[in-house]
């Protein structure tokens, strides 16, 4: 069985960088929300924290090489896609329940819809590196 190509090489380099940026942004945002206004809207703010954790896991999973990392990345990207779709739909249907924006509110509109695009790119990239030769020609070790 051919070994899967590393996910942090070639286009994956940029993907990991953007994921890292979102991990940073989501973590900082949720820290500020939980630290200053937790009482106002506990549910969306806890969702923000969950989103931050998902971005951190996706970044690590994609940046590292190996079967375990690939599984972590797959789980994180899938959770992220489900999260952005669920929270996006919920925030549109029940705007009152989301007084302050989370990363995933309104399908990530506050972040240029990148939160909706990223998990799709991540999943496509995971599929591509699982079956194709590494486009950058790196051995990955």
């Amino acid at each position, binding site marked *: 069985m051919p070994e899967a190509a590393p996910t942090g*090489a*070639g*286009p*994956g*380099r*940029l993907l*990991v*960088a*953007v994921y*890292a*940026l979102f991990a*940073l*942004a989501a973590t*900082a945002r949720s*820290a*500020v929300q939980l*630290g*200053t206004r937790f009482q106002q809207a506990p549910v969306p703010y806890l969702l923000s924290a969950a989103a931050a954790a998902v971005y951190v896991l996706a970044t690590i999973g994609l940046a590292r090489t190996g079967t375990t990392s690939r599984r972590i990345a797959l789980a994180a990207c899938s959770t992220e896609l489900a999260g952005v779709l669920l929270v996006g739909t919920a925030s549109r249907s029940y705007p009152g329940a989301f007084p302050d924006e989370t990363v995933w509110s309104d399908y990530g509109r506050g972040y240029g819809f990148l939160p909706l695009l990223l998990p799709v790119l991540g999943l496509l990239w995971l599929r591509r590196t699982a079956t194709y030769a590494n486009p*950058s020609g*790196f051995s990955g070790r």
Partner: protein
Amino acid sequence: MIPVLETVLPVVALALGGWILLSALRNRPPLVLHLGALAAVEVGVLLQTAVVLAQLASGHRPGEPLAFACYVLAALLIPPLAVLWALQERSRWSTAVLGAACLAEALMMVRLGQTWRAGA
């Protein structure tokens, strides 16, 4: 905050980011010139941070202290982390990482000003 820097830094970071992304589109690996651009952005951020520290010492307070601190930290960390990550592979994609970092810096600079003046 130095008002001039507050306006100039995001614009410069945006322009440098655009130029670096253009280099990536033209299939260039990261060049010393690109690294110089990120160094220049970092120097600008350091300068602004020094001024902010001085203003904090003399009693000024940002409108949203916690958010402001996060943006300062992010703005300081993004360029060196991007360079470290980009230098591990010499490809156009690493160049794109440097360009994206510059764009992110422009955003950090804008938010820095907003959270400093918030509520004032």
